[in-house]
């Protein structure tokens, strides 16, 4: 029986989960006018960070731990399942939903998403502290624009500023469920964290390519706004390249 994660890994993972919870507060602490103006660059930056983290940190680490065909099949399988789920259940649940029902669906979907984020953070810290820090950073960065969007929808559903923030922060902490499940599972077999990291690669690709990039490439952003978002995407990629290389260049 493997020894399981050390106390240091537990502390790193739980600290990252709490910081991730803090991302929800950004939406309420920053003036709403600024949020509106900064939304597209924030989304672009988050997409860049997620894509670069997936290709430079998560996938190489997964390929080190699992046979390449199996690793890539799990990543692509997860991506396909997430797309099918979003197009079927997600679309059906939200079409024609009233504002109050939409708020419940939004928080439920956010909790689902956060469990995946928590599992990704834990699996990445189990691979190595460097991959853990970069992955936790990517999770927190992509949460900011998503929480901003959720905050706007909850306010439109009639929630006060305080209640919207409290609900979002509470739901954000469901990431702990995914993190704890992954840490406990890895005590049974170290392969669990490798599988979880491969699943995280698929969910990251889904978030970046299906959720984030279309909002500024196919959405309402035009002209300068779209250019700023694309520049921010490049900046996100560049930041992860620098972080990956300064933190050991992908070598253990």
């Amino acid at each position: 029986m493997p020894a399981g994660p050390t106390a240091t890994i537990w502390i790193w993972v739980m600290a990252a989960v709490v910081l991730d919870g803090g991302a929800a507060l950004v939406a309420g602490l920053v003036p709403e006018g600024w949020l509106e103006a900064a939304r597209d660059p924030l989304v672009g930056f988050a997409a860049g960070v997620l894509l670069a983290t997936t290709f430079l940190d998560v996938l190489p680490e997964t390929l080190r731990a699992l046979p390449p065909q199996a690793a890539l099949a799990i990543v692509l399988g997860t991506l396909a399942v997430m797309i099918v789920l979003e197009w079927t259940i997600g679309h059906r649940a939200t079409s024609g939903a009233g504002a109050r029902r939409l708020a419940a669906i939004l928080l439920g979907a956010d909790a689902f998403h956060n469990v995946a984020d928590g599992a990704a953070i834990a699996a990445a810290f189990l691979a190595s502290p460097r991959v853990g820090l970069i992955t936790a950073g990517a999770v927190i960065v992509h949460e900011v624009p998503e929480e901003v969007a959720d905050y706007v929808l909850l306010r439109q559903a009639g929630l006060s500023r305080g209640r919207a923030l409290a609900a979002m922060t509470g739901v954000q902490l469901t990431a702990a469920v995914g993190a704890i499940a992954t840490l406990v599972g890895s005590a049974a077999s170290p392969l669990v964290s490798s599988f979880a990291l491969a699943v995280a690669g698929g969910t990251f690709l889904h978030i970046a390519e299906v959720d984030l990039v279309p909002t500024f490439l196919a959405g309402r952003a035009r002209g300068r706004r779209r250019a700023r978002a694309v520049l921010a995407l490049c900046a996100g990629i560049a930041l992860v390249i620098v972080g990956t290389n300064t933190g050991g260049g992908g070598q253990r």
Partner: protein
Amino acid sequence: MSEYLLGGALVGVLFLVVAAAVGLGVAWLWRRARRG
């Protein structure tokens, strides 16, 4: 190879079940709190 795929599928399904349970639980609690 096949045992790795099986393991990956198992972890993926477990993840889906846990995440769906948490998501549905949060949505249910929220609706109940709003009604109450």
